[in-house]
């Protein structure tokens, strides 16, 4: 059992940090420190391309597809340094972290040729069409229909919470392609071009005033017959495989962002005297402890080589960070006091800490609510009997 990284890995860390800090001090100075998903989207597409030009776009991918074959440790290090340098999140994070790996795992050779280079190069931005108004946590209730007609898939229905659909080029859509099928059966996974008359995107303004996600309407939207990944009816399997990619190395990079937020709270508490309040001090200590435990939990999860075991660290990570960050947002506001509830000016745009407070209410909902996470832990981790399901016959 060891805490840190090897000297060679630390050397790699220095290389990453040098390059990233150089970029953020130079050509891409104007996007440093952006924490919302939508700000300066066009400029950030250019940043995606800059990453690609220097082969930093998707370092975990195989070299033939524009990656570096980076080890898990190297991916972790890059993610950490990326966040530490204050580089904004990836506009194409769905493409890089979800669509790409899904194509690598389940796509045909032809599909890889067609999509991977564009994703790697930051030219093809992807979004994800899973959730529907009636299928949130209960993804198997998908109703959006797909049918084959004259060599094309024709799609009708509605998706929701499609993050960044308004700046994306492609969407992958889980559709019900078998008439009358229920639950996880009869679903098919399609890749669709967004810029077509059958797809309409409407932004949804959210709690913090930003609009990163959308409602996406499909009215006889079309894609060629070979746009599916896997086979007809494989949609559930592919979607679950894809969700597994969400729990990956990005966790440690995400923690660097959390570190920055906590540091900002510490600075605010020192500046306004809240740091003298014994109760605030207790909560600061709990926040620091929680952050460290996330880090070492993630390192345990990533160091685990026996992936056949159901790993407690992996099962609990989502609820752990989401709950922690929601508390962090509340702590931030208690440190700021009423000053956190106002700013001068007329726009409803918030600085980092008030925005954290508002935005973190989503953390315990998206990607599986805390309640769903608890069910998973109890049922998969502890072998508790399943909750009785409604009739899906």
């Amino acid at each position, binding site marked *: *059992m*060891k*805490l*840190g*990284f090897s000297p060679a*890995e630390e050397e790699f860390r220095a290389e990453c940090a040098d390059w990233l800090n150089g970029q953020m001090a130079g050509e891409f100075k104007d996007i440093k420190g952006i924490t919302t998903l939508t700000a300066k989207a066009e400029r950030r597409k250019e940043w995606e391309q800059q990453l690609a030009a220097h082969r930093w776009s998707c370092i975990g991918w195989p070299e033939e597809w524009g990656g570096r074959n980076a080890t*898990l*440790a190297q991916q*972790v290090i890059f993610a950490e340094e990326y966040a530490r340098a204050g580089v904004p999140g990836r506009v194409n994070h769905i493409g890089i972290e979800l669509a790409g790996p899904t194509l690598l795992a389940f796509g045909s050779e032809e599909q890889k040729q067609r999509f991977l280079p564009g994703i790697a190069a930051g030219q093809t931005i992807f979004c994800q069409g899973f959730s529907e108004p009636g299928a949130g946590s209960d993804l198997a209730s998908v109703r959006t229909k797909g049918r084959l007609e004259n060599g094309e898939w024709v799609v009708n229905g509605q998706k929701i919470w499609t993050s960044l659909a308004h700046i994306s080029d492609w969407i992958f859509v889980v559709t019900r392609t078998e008439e009358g099928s229920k639950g996880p059966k009869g679903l098919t996974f399609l890749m669709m071009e967004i810029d077509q008359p059958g797809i309409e995107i409407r932004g949804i303004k959210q709690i913090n005033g930003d609009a990163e996600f959308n409602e996406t309407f499909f009215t006889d939207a079309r894609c060629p017959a070979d746009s599916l990944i896997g086979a007809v009816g494989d949609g559930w399997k592919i979607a679950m495989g894809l969700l597994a990619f969400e729990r990956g190395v990005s966790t440690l990079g995400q923690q660097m962002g959390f570190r920055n937020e906590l540091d900002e709270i*510490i600075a605010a*508490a*020192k500046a306004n005297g809240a*740091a003298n309040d*014994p109760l605030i*001090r*207790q909560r*600061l*200590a*709990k926040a*620091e*402890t*929680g952050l*460290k*435990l*996330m880090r*070492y*939990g993630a*390192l*345990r999860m*990533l*160091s*685990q*080589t026996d992936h056949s075991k159901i790993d*407690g*660290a992996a*099962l*609990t990570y989502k*609820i*752990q960070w989401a*709950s922690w960050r929601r508390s962090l947002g509340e702590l931030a506001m208690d440190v700021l006091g009423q000053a956190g509830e106002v700013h001068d000016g007329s726009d409803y745009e918030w600085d980092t800490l008030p925005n954290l407070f508002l935005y973190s209410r989503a953390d315990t909902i998206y990607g599986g609510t805390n*309640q769903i*996470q*608890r*069910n998973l*832990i*109890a*049922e998969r*981790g*502890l*072998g*508790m*009997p*399943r*909750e*009785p399901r409604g009739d899906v016959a």
Partner: protein
Amino acid sequence: MEFVLTEEQQMIGETAKAFFVENATSERTRNAMAADGIDRDLWTSFCTELGLAGIGIPEERGGIGLGLVELAIVAEAAGSTVAALPMLGSIVLSARAIAMGGSAAQRDAHLTTLLSGEQIAAYVHDAALTAHGNALTGSAGFVAHGAAADLLIVTSNSGAWIVSADAPGVTVTVQTTMDQTRPYARVTLSGAVGEPLEDATTAIAAAHQAGYVAIAAEALGVAQTALDRTVAYAKERVQFGRAIGSFQAYKHRLADMVVDIEQARSAVYWAACAVDEGSDEAALAVHAAKSFAADTAFRCAGDMIQLHGGIGFTWEHDAHLYFKRARALQSMMGSGNWHREQIAKMMLGEAA
């Protein structure tokens, strides 16, 4: 990136776990509780047959080597059965203080008998102790297994002495203690003569660091067993025609236990590893581990009672043993609030 137990460490864990599960049975623990809180046969076989007592003490200082990670593994296993043993006071605190801060002669005189279990030492800490030369006057309650001790390691904030329990001026009074598996005693010194440890500062620091880690590891073992036994009960107990574990309110509470336990596990092994590696984070880590893991144990043991219903409240069931141990772990060697205040000072750059 190898933040998982090595094969050797896993083996130590399996061996220790099997030893405690087989030997530290509820019946034997209860017999020890009715006496002085020590299962003597268990202690002898732990020290001699299992041979793990010298863990965490370098070989050249009289131990068997390995580090706090291995010590934590053993303490976790002991905690998982709430074994009635003087491990914390005699080995983790006292023997380690002698090993790390004692002279060669002091090590020779005491380590062998302590690590073999022939003698038992108790760790006495009194911040207000007065020392005239080596004549010590002071008093400390809450001395774990103090009444069973042959030897006392007496520490103030700056000094450390070895005092024989039967020396003139030493009075040891056993106290009825909520956690009967580790009864406290009050130790009063009235000019009792002690032999100073050569390097008191090192002795105290080494003992406290190991103490925090061992308490945290014990707490982890307590929490995990509280969960495991509740999970087993949830699968077999039927109400309203269903196993109670199928109810979401029950499941969610178990899941919350898992979430805390996984973090406690990270905390314990992070702290142990940080001390072993001399990491900059070691001071922060031991305070984090002690406060977080003890709170986790308390919550899980409390949930164990609640989720067992009426049976969990009885003396017959073991739940109360875990609950009382967990409470003691929270308060011994500094409350959670005190440890978190130490963390806050470090975070805010106020550390002394």
